[in-house]
């Protein structure tokens, strides 16, 4: 697989050398990177950690499966321009997601600099190989995702159309990469050091939220019957929309229409990406790499402001409410402090917060109209309250990710009879710091709209979410916080569990709703029921579930 991928660069040897790189060294660096990618360790914990030699192929198959869904969605579209427009937009969106989510690992990886930089290799070779690596990644993904769409396109619009389409995918990849590079460079211009890393983090979060918003909106707006005959009209601004360049080019070859409008598209599709990639390789990437190096160096010299341990009233209150065992106190405090500082935690947690905001917004603007009167007389506040389950459930996974895998030895050297106390402290701190405040604010809002009669419901929903969240946390593999590299492979299992728990959350909400319907105080019965369950989970269940044997399996203490 790697050999095949590398051979793809052969025809472009002149181009690579023209950009000022040494071709052989370039290929060697790429080969090294790909080999490492292919051996990416999967699974969690030292026992589960098996070296997989075929990570790339497995990943590709997964992406192809995903592409099937998309092709199914587009299969009914009649107009070739619209069909390819959708596929290209989808690809760009997926690539953007990929660049954003994998950005830190691929583009921002400076660890190799220590090894590669002292060797006699020209800067251009290094930066080009870095770009080529990302390019390979993106193209591989794009082709995997669109392989089914290409076949479908071939059947619908002819073989030539499919071939031209495959070619435009490549152009699309080049263009997206160029765009992403520009964007990140602009951001890097604006800030440096720690500040830059923070900006990048928030940028990623905003993008993630925007994607969710776009998804919500498009899901609401698009009407399936409409799609079939949908023909995108070409306005003057259509010429500025990137997916239109590529779909215009494909359409030109599909229906052999070479009028002025198509010629403009063809010119755009061919010229912009190639100029873009030349510009990226020649000018942007070196600047980018220089900035990256500054970033690395900057970390060491940047003066850090002294931190005084803040023990706010809020912290004291939460501690008193949630922590009743001495062994949980220190872990609670540890996570309370660290959650605010671990970037990866924020990265995986904050998007879910954004999602909730969007969800709530959607509740208010249903049917494209805002009707407060109707809203207040509905039980839709239950939907909003139980929607918060999403925040609660995103915490357990967010607590796992981080780069501290070598810091966990400390938990094992401390005398503690059951590790369960640690994990109880961890999850409680995360809930107290990142769930309770938002829930409180929202509850006040809900109470002011629906009146005081919903206070019991607010409490019941809170107990339900609390119960499900701690249950989920105790059931997931007991890794110490912020000590696991984000890996896609564990995503599947987590996703399945998450779906199960989301389903149970919906069920709990529904029971709540039914009881309310039955007679107004019936729902109060849920309060003692949940309290007993929470007591059981926190006092008995967790100590049976989280034992040193299980914890040792997942964590390594080096």
């Amino acid at each position, binding site marked *: 697989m790697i050999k095949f991928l590398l051979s793809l660069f052969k025809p472009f040897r002149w181009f690579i050398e023209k950009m000022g790189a040494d071709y052989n060294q370039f290929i060697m660096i790429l080969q090294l990177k790909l080999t490492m990618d292919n051996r990416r360790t999967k699974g969690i914990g030292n026992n589960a950690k098996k070296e997989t030699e075929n990570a790339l192929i497995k990943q590709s198959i997964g992406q192809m499966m995903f592409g099937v869904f998309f092709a199914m969605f587009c299969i009914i579209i009649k107009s070739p321009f619209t069909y390819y427009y959708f596929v290209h937009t989808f690809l760009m969106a997926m690539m953007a997601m990929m660049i954003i989510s994998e950005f830190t690992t691929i583009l921002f990886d400076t660890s190799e600099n220590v090894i590669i930089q002292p060797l006699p290799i020209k800067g251009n070779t290094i930066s080009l190989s870095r770009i080529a690596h990302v390019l390979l990644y993106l193209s591989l993904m794009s082709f995997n995702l669109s392989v089914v769409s290409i076949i479908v396109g071939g059947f619908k619009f002819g073989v030539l159309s499919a071939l031209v389409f495959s070619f435009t995918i490549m152009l699309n990849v080049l263009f997206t990469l160029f765009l992403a590079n520009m964007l990140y460079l602009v951001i890097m211009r604006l800030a440096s050091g720690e500040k830059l890393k923070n900006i990048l983090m928030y940028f990623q979060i905003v993008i993630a939220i925007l994607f969710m918003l776009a998804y919500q909106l498009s899901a609401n707006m698009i009407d399936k019957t409409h799609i079939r005959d949908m023909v995108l009209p070409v306005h003057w601004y259509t010429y500025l929309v990137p997916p239109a360049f590529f779909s215009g080019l494909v359409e030109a070859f599909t229906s052999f229409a070479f009028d002025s409008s198509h010629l403009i598209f063809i010119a755009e599709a061919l010229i912009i990406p190639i100029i873009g990639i030349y510009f990226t390789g020649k000018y942007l990437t070196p600047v980018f790499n220089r900035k990256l190096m500054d970033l690395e160096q900057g970390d060491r010299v940047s003066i*850090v402001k002294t*931190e005084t341990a803040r023990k706010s009233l809020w912290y004291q209150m939460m501690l008193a409410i949630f922590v009743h065992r001495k062994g949980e*106190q220190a872990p609670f405090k*540890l996570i309370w402090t660290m959650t605010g500082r671990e970037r990866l935690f924020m990265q995986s947690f904050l998007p879910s917060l954004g999602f909730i905001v969007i969800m709530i917004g959607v509740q208010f603007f249903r049917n494209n109209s805002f009707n407060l009167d109707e809203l207040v007389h509905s039980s839709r506040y239950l939907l909003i309250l139980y929607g918060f389950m999403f925040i609660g459930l995103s915490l357990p996974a967010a607590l796992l990710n981080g780069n501290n895998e070598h810091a966990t030895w*400390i938990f094992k050297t401390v*005398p503690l009879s059951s590790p369960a106390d640690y994990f109880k402290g961890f999850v409680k701190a995360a809930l107290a710091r990142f769930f309770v405040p938002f829930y409180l604010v929202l509850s006040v809002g809900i109470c002011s709209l629906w009146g005081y009669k919903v206070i019991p419901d607010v409490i019941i929903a809170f107990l339900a979410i609390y119960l499900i969240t701690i249950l989920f946390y105790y059931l997931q593999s007991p890794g110490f916080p912020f000590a696991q590299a984000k890996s896609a492979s564990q995503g599947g299992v987590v996703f399945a569990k998450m779906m199960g728990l989301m389903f149970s959350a919906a069920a709990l909400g529904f029971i709540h709703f039914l009881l309310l319907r039955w007679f107004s105080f019936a729902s109060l019965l849920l309060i003692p029921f949940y309290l007993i369950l929470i007591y059981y989970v926190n006092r008995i269940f967790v100590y049976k579930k989280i034992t040193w044997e299980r914890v040792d399996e997942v964590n390594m203490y*080096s």
Partner: protein
Amino acid sequence: MSNQTIVQIQNLEKNYGKKQVLHGINLEITSGQIIGYIGPNGAGKSTTVKILCGLINEYQGEISIFGKDLRTNTLEIKKQVGYIPENAVLYESLTPMEFMEFIGEMRGLENEITRSKAEALMNIFEMKANLNQRIATFSKGMRQKVMICSALLHNPDLIFMDEPLSGLDANSVIMVKEMLIHLAREGKTVFYSSHLMDVVEKISDRIILIDQGKVIADGSFDDLNKLSNDENLEKMFTRLTGNTNHGEKAEAFINAFEK
């Protein structure tokens, strides 16, 4: 007091999968001593230390520390043990104070006591000013100092150190050496594992040399030296671990370049 047996190891064996790393180690360590635990790379030094600290639970053989069985009294023993690991990492997003507060609290120390101890210890290393800065900004030596301080917070009776001097500047090295001698004088036992032969030779009351998972020399340097006349520990080390032809090897190294 100085003759009390602190650690007793009988027939300690350890396998990682099929590979056996420790082939029956027998040791008896008395209090108030600095034990230099040396051996070539991969000899099983770190593994022994990790087992003794309770980081690795699975092993064959019997170990008792403070007269208690390690398997059944792990917690009791951990309370009196301090551990400074090799290559270990600290939570970078914390400050030394926060890190030590966590450890102190988990070990059942009062918060006030932890704080004053942390300040005092860090002050010795001239790092009091760094107490409330994030560890992420520290150099290797500074991290090592934090690690040493946090291992000594609870005044342990038995201290395990895995290459504790790595990354420290010359002043700090002298200081840590002095500190170890003081600790031993107070009756504490220091189990010191290192590759720095001259340091081990100078500070150790007793030297244990292991190779391929077996003890191959055990005694004070003077005792050991009487048997062989190696003039220093480095020479003894190379003779016992079977690499005497360094000269030839170095030459082969040079030749490899010339071809």
